[in-house]
């Protein structure tokens, strides 16, 4: 994974003057003392203060890791060995200096919902030192019998097509399913029954409770032409408006995108399997082939840190091949690639 150019920031300009890989490398510095904050969607940095460092590990602080889009069973040129890259992701999580309390997988565990694919995923995840893993399904996990295979394995205690909520150290987590019963011409969909449940689930909770919503397809509209959004997400987001801190974690698009809207920060994770093109830059959203030695640079994991003192979540994305990173602060997002 060592590359002599690894620490160079590519200066090719994009909208914000820093290309994506350069941005990600900046992010990866967080672990060595650079804090990235997001204000109105624009990242800025400041030095990591000592006090922040001391706060980490206090009672109540914790972190968890998001992984996504493992597509076990996929074997096309974009990544002929998706099990190996998932394994790399797990190794990276296990090597983190701060142990995550749990892992969230935001869907597309499998390519074709086959029992053998779920078996392979389970086998690989058994190697994670974090034993608690929360799942939501992607559309690839619901391909047979209305998702029966998925629900039998991962849906115990969930409602409907697999939605649920849980609390962890004062943070309320909600796993939503927006890949079931999709309608012709539409995007992702939560459906009336789930929205009603969500409204009830959030009712009566203190507005100071940090909320984390996670689902496979983005709960904000990224690119409708490719179906990268959820038709009824506005309704869901109206239920969280009164909360002081809301973090929305999604997968599906196999690349990092983020946005802050009021108290809500949206974030999508990289895949552990293959990359997909930036919106509108290719004829379709199909798997993007990259040179083999570049693959781990477009795959990664997301580390989310919660600090009681800041009442905020910090999100750190890591490439599979670099040492893991950490950060803290409101809406901090650091993405790490596999390589």
């Amino acid at each position: 994974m060592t590359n002599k150019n690894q620490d160079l920031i590519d200066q090719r300009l994009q909208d914000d003057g820093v290309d994506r890989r350069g941005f990600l490398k900046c992010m990866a510095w967080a672990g060595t003392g650079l804090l990235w904050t997001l204000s109105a969607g624009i990242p800025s940095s400041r030095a990591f203060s000592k006090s922040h460092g001391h706060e980490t590990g206090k009672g109540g602080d914790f972190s968890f890791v998001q992984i996504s889009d493992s597509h076990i069973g996929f074997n096309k040129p974009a990544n002929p060995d998706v099990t190996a890259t998932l394994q790399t992701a797990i190794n990276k999580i296990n090597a983190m200096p701060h142990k995550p309390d749990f892992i969230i997988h935001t869907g597309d565990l499998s390519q074709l919902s086959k029992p053998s694919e779920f078996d392979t995923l389970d086998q690989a995840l058994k190697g994670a030192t974090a034993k608690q893993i929360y799942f939501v399904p992607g559309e690839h996990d619901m391909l047979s019998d209305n998702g029966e295979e998925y629900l039998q394995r991962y849906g115990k205690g969930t409602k409907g097509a697999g939605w649920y909520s849980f609390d962890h150290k004062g943070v309320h987590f909600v796993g939503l399913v927006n890949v079931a019963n999709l309608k012709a011409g539409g995007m992702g969909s939560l459906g009336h029954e789930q929205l009603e449940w969500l409204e009830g689930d959030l009712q009566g909770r203190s507005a100071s409770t940090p909320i984390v919503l996670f689902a496979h397809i983005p709960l904000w509209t990224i690119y409708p032409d490719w179906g990268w959004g959820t038709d009824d997400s506005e309704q869901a987001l109206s239920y969280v408006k009164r909360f002081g801190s809301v973090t929305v974690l999604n997968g599906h698009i196999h690349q990092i995108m983020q946005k802050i809207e009021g108290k809500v920060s949206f974030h999508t994770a990289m895949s552990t399997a293959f990359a997909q093109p930036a919106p509108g830059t290719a004829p379709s959203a199909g798997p993007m082939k990259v040179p083999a030695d570049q693959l781990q640079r477009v795959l990664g994991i997301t580390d989310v840190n919660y600090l009681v003192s800041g009442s905020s979540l910090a999100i750190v994305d890591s490439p599979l091949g670099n040492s893991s990173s950490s950060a803290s602060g409101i809406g901090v997002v650091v993405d790490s690639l596999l390589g």
Partner: protein
Amino acid sequence: MTTKKVWIVGLATTVMTAMLLLAGTPSVTANDQPSAASVDVKIDNFSFGPQTLTVSVGTTVVWTNRDDIPHTVVSTEGVFKSKVRDTDEKFSFTFNTAGTYPYFCSVHPKMTGKIVVQ
């Protein structure tokens, strides 16, 4: 003799009726004309091509998934529904009744198409 003649006439009528029925019912494919019965729809880059296909009654439409990602072919009105089709897998359906049949990929619902049967 008389009985036999009646039987022969009866048989001839039956055969002729059967032939007329065959000729008047295009949904039954004659063995000597198999080529008219099948038309292809290709799935490429998350789209059905052609998106709208017009065929005559009795035509079998064959969809082939040429993407690296699985798709389905599902009638919006519940007329037909494929299993998930991985790369290079096919699904076919024979349209025996005139009408318009909108369909979509239930995995990627932005993918829509239409078969017009006349």
